[in-house]
């Protein structure tokens, strides 16, 4: 087990420089944003010297380097500054909004996996057949449309015309109070509280945005599953298994799929960050109080602290997700430990 810990340690060490890189870039990126927060903070009718006075208060007059160290210092203390867009400390804002985005992204991803993996396997076991082509066309169609377009289209059909879906009004219809806070994921919290009514309502709200995201994530997962399965089925060890008379299902699942799962897992890391970016638009369309819609407004309103906080948390999330995937990989695949 010792090598596993050393390996995890090294993986963490490896993530450190990119985190530092992210902090620096997010700082520079926001400083390069057009617009001057001092003017915004000074309010609608402020004149020249009241803007200057606010600028000094915010410490924006000092050199960039100095500002960076102040920012890094605050960051260490966990203070990400105040978002003038929503009037609340950024850290608190992110903590309340992150579960919303995560719940949406993970549901979308989960749906995508449930559909794309079997589809990929189906296509791999019958290469070149009409199923293979159909799966490829369907999946490519899914990824060919911008998410905001699919989102609005689904709203128009299922909410506006048919009235099946609930109103795209955020995470929970106004009839229901959000469940007592446990994980921040409404679905899980309502289950924990045993409140099936709210649970059902949460699911109904989740369906449309999750489907929009899922459509977008189908292609990479299905394509990777198909490729990996084809590789595994053509491998020597599958031929040996067939020569030893193992049943088709045993070969397909225990031998071929488990090996194919490794590359699929690595793509999931990338697809997750891909979705995090995509749900920025989906949140705007479904008025989902997630981290994405918060970022858009902050960016458009050049709300420094909010943009920095958002970019940093996204980056840390990405690094964490990749770390988890690497750990899972080391558990499943004994070889990973050695020739990383």
């Amino acid at each position, binding site marked *: 087990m010792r090598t596993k810990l*050393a390996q995890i340690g*090294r*993986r963490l*060490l*490896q993530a450190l*420089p990119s985190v530092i890189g992210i902090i620096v870039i997010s700082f520079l990126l926001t400083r390069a944003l057009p617009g001057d927060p001092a003017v915004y903070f000074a309010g609608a009718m402020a004149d020249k010297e009241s803007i200057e006075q606010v600028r000094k208060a915010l410490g924006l007059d000092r050199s960039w380097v100095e500002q960076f160290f102040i920012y890094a210092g605050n960051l260490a203390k966990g203070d990400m500054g105040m978002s003038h867009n929503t009037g609340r400390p950024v850290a608190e804002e992110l903590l309340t909004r992150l579960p919303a985005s995560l719940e949406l992204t993970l549901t979308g991803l989960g749906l995508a996996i449930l559909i794309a993996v079997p589809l990929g396997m189906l296509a791999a076991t019958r290469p070149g057949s009409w199923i293979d082509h159909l799966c490829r066309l369907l999946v490519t169609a899914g990824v060919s449309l911008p998410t905001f377009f699919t989102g609005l289209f689904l709203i128009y059909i299922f909410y506006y015309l048919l009235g099946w879906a609930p109103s795209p009004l955020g995470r929970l219809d106004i009839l229901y109070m959000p469940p007592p806070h446990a994980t921040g994921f409404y679905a899980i919290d309502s289950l924990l509280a045993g409140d099936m009514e709210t649970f059902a309502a949460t699911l109904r709200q989740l369906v449309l945005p999750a489907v929009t995201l899922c459509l977008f994530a189908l292609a990479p997962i299905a394509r990777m599953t198909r490729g990996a399965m084809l590789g595994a089925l053509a*491998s*020597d*060890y599958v*031929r*040996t*298994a*067939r*020569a*030893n*008379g*193992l*049943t088709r299902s*045993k070969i397909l699942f*225990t*031998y071929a799929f*488990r*090996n194919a799962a*490794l590359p699929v897992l690595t793509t999931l890391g990338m697809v997750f960050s891909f979705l995090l970016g995509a749900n920025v638009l989906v949140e705007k369309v479904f008025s989902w109080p997630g981290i994405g819609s918060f970022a858009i407004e902050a960016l458009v309103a050049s709300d420094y602290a909010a943009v920095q906080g958002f970019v940093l948390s996204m980056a840390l999330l990405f690094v964490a997700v990749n770390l988890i995937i690497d750990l899972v990989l080391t558990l*499943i*695949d*004994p*070889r990973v430990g*050695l*020739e*990383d």
Partner: protein
Amino acid sequence: MDAQPILRIDNLSVRFRTRNGTVDALKGVSFSVAKGEVLGVVGESGSGKSVTAFTVTGLLDQAGEACAGTINFDGMELTKANEAELRELRGREFSMIFQNPRAALNPIRPVGKQIEDVLIQHAQATRQDAKAKAISMLEKVKIVEPYLRYWSYPFELSGGMCQRVMIAIALACEPRLLIADEPTTGLDVTTQKATMDLIRDLTREQHLSVVLITHDLGMAAAYCDRIVVMQKGEVVETAAVRDLFTAPKHPYTKKLIAASPGPSSKLDDLTAVLDDNTSHQPSMTRTINSGADTGHLLEVVDLVKEFPRRDVEMTGWAWPVKKREAQVFRAVDGISFVLKRGESLGLVGESGCGKSTTSSILTRLMDPTSGDVIFDGANVTSYSAQQFARLPQRMKIQMVFQDPSDSLNPRFTAQDSIAEPLKRLLKMKGSKQIDIKVEELAEKVGLEKALLSRFPHQLSGGQKARVGIARAIAADPLLLILDEPTSALDVSVQAVVLQLLDRLRCELGMSYIFVSHDLNVVRLLCERVIVMNRGRIVEDGLADEVLSNPKDDYTRQLVSAIPHFEPGKL
């Protein structure tokens, strides 16, 4: 061995549907295997020996189909059986073991579990006692500490040990027929011998019939009762081992026997038997001018090359962790030898003995940790690999690579590959001038002009080897280092290439360093031989001397492990 055959194949034909039309892989193959008999199926690549095995076990991929003939296994007609029936038989009645064992085992599943899968599948064991049975099978194939090895993964075992696991899996349900498809290719000579002895003992003990498929005549001679020789999808001859070797009837068989280098065969014998498609070249008498002291071409003074123990310098995206306990692994541990001008030297040893590392250092593709190489009077190790590239000595040392298909750039035609050294080293400019020189070189290595415009994947193994050689001698080097140039080639092709190499040596007066694991092949070309083991030179002497009575016991073990046919021994 009673005469009732366990397996009878009658007039079997197999066709493959490929992109450009159908290919007849087998044309009317017939032979049978008696109970308890070890039948050898010998043939070069493309002779259809593996296709036969796959057709028998019903493992042909979709593209192939058995279009004629019957396969009778102990009274049951296999070509008529559907997939379910066949699956019942596989593993229980007949089973197979394959080449390249490490890839043939599931990389992420403990070997013990893989044995259990087969046992449980054929109801030879219940979930509870499957583990015990698996461990006993591991013991049977002489794997030390079986209860520990039960949990290890294929990448943690050596090639030989993986093959033993494969054998354990194949024999777990005590089948009545074992088909071994090139089981020992790619293994070290000593491991090869150990594996084949294990197969012989186990199959005799369970009086199992065996079909051994191989391209190595020596192997077939040492371990089989009867041999079937196949060429281009047809059976050309079937005979008992003794009769086949003493009185081969079919010319192809004769050619094969002659082409496999034995301990006493001469270079000219290889192509002694007249064959229609290889033109007979009068072989030059090889003068050993070791006497005339024309100075040392190459002098190596206690060369050392060290590699870190665990390749800590991750080539992945990892941060270099401090080398805490990384001991150093010495691939080359202080070797020294001298090479006279025009002399050719053999470097022999098993894989991992440091012979390839040495050759890379000599050709300056790799920098040594310490030690000197004085070539043609100049100390070449003093320059870095990059600087050496621009020196005039660069063209004086060239190399022929082991795997011909990997040594040619897939996007270059043969013409471009050969022209490359002319343009770079000899700074030849005019395309007209280059074309003439390329044609001259092609002619010298016996390559038809028409093949020059072809891509590597459109050339055969032999033709690719000739392009590699033509490229190496383009800048007429003084020293040519041959890194197992013929090990990937078929026996008959190897014979022709070896003769070509010998002829070029005499014509161009080059000296060779011939790196190989096969003493018989080295003996043909080189006067002197160096045997290496774990980075050190264990023996240095005249080739015939070393082969007939080796002084060092490691060399003795190496020589005895090479399977070959000895009339007297049977």
